[in-house]
């Protein structure tokens, strides 16, 4: 059986490895325009926390999320140097809105923090908060590991841009479309759109928690750096770093967390999150190079 996966971000590589794991005799080929360290997954902080999801199917999201969490958890405790790490931290709000997150039983140590405790800690501008322990999976470390594993398992790579699905050729039994934003041109899915994020990577090793301040600021832990954010600009294709966004991120986060002021800035990066009204995960029969194939999106 031969399978082609399009896309080498976290979704493409995870899919490729999962297939190799389930079907060890399958020949899997991965075709992608870019590989780590040049994909969106490298920019991401890899923070496990459902975010900016308009998909209303919380049952399905919860299941996918839970399985992913368990997978990262196994990495974090059993294997060294995978890019997986635990992080505890706070999400705080200046209003008293209490959301009931569908993922609160997936993370660990989830609890509501009282206003009094928040003020005792010194966060006097905030009224409500939650605390929990979650995971991060750093793309820039994990993706190369996955790629090596994929090749060790006999996987083949093709480094090229596809203009449409026919570009992969007619020799595969099934195709996985994990092309993210690329789906717009690959299969003409115009419902996929970028949600632009700009971040600042800093070194502040004395800060050990993650913090989310309201809807527009966050401080997330990675192994050797901290990711400050953020922005979420819909339909914005601009990947250049913008000074106004830098000011928003830096000024806001250092105001809420003064300990950040001594942080050393390493770099600024942007990424385009591949947004869609709902996540598309389904199989369809489709003509590829004139023959009907199963394509899983």
């Amino acid at each position: 059986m031969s399978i082609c996966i399009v896309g080498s971000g976290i979704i493409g590589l995870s899919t490729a490895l999962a297939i190799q794991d389930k079907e060890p005799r399958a020949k899997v080929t991965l075709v992608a325009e870019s590989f780590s360290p040049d994909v969106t997954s490298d920019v991401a902080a890899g923070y496990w926390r459902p975010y900016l999801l308009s998909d209303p199917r919380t049952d399905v999201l919860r299941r996918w999320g839970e399985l992913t969490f368990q997978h990262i958890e196994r990495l974090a405790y059993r294997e060294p140097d995978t890019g997986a790490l635990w992080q505890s931290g706070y999400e705080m709000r200046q209003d008293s809105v209490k959301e009931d997150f569908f993922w609160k039983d997936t993370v660990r140590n989830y609890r509501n923090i009282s206003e009094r405790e928040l003020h005792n800690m010194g966060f006097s501008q905030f009224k409500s908060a939650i605390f929990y322990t979650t995971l991060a999976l750093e793309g820039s470390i994990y993706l190369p590991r996955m790629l090596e594993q994929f090749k060790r398992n006999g996987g083949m790579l093709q480094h090229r841009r596809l203009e449409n699905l026919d570009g992969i050729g007619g020799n595969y039994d099934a195709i996985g479309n994990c092309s993210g934003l690329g789906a717009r041109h690959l299969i003409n899915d115009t419902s996929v759109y970028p949600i632009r994020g700009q971040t600042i990577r800093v070194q502040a090793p004395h800060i050990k928690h993650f913090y989310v301040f309201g809807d527009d600021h966050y401080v997330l832990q990675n192994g050797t750096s901290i990711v400050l954010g953020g922005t979420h600009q819909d339909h914005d294709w601009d990947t250049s770093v913008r000074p106004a966004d830098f000011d928003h991120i830096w000024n806001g986060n250092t105001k809420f967390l003064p300990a950040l002021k001594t942080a050393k800035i390493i770099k600024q990066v942007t990424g385009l999150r591949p947004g869609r009204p709902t996540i598309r995960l389904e199989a369809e029969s489709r003509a590829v190079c004139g023959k009907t194939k199963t394509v899983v999106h």
Partner: protein
Amino acid sequence: MQTKVAVIGAGVSGCSSALALLEQYPNLDVTIFSDRPFEQTTSFGPAGLFRLDKLENRKRALASFKRFTEIHQKIGGSAGVQLVSGHILSDDLQLLKQQEACMADIVFNFGWLKEHELKQFANPSKYAIHFTSFTTEGRTYVPWLVRNLKEKGAKFESRRVTSLEELGREYNLVINCAGLNAGELVSDDQVVPIRGVLIEVDASWHKHFLYRDLVTISIPSTTSLFIGTVKEVGRSDLVITQEDREDIWNRVLNLMPTLKNAKVLSEWIGLRPHREQIRLDLETRQTADGKAFTVINNYGHGANGFTLSWGCALDVVELAGSQLKIASRL
């Protein structure tokens, strides 16, 4: 006549006591005596996780926690103060209940892990607690105290003090924070060293503290991770042995297998200055020439020196209060 204060010991107890005094009495004449470089003291090495062992010290612990909260909010890392969350795993329910009784209402986020949460650890235990606390790592926090002290005009002298009387001739108030040697100065033989071993490794992705019982530990510092330890009562040799290393690495890797490739940065032995109860009291003494002077003892903190440092310092200030008001023009 201005009161002259001598503090014996420039570790966390001596420096905290001196700083608390100077914050209360800004014009006080304070000299801190130490008999060795800071790197050779017990206060240099600890990762300094705030954690309490005895109910009787709760008040002092709470005062310290409040102080660390303030420093963390205003300054953070450069003072060596970090906010850290983590877990203590144990099969001994009483051990964890004791921790709960000691500090559940002092630290942040104290809670017991639910059954399904216990499985997240590589080699799970029967029970686990979680909390958020501070670390005040010796090698950064004490130098920060010293910087503050110098700004406030405190003087530092390198001298081994062999008797209180020798200081009593020149000083009105002597604060005995001599740690392991404090007992000798006041004919108290109850201070006993408890040897500890810490290995410093490079594992910056390890953001939590994680303990199994109270003797297998991992605590992140501002730049590295400390793993350890042992608790050898009465033992005072300062060289790490191969036996120490094997014992600690076995236990720590059982707790946290992902540390297996971590690079070792340094190794350190510390002697906890243990006493059944902390001695914090006031006594009046006389020099050979009949001059009266006051001694305040602040020693015997064992494994809780950093945790109780500020609370004890405030008690020193309170005891010193009456003496200072009588004898000075402050």
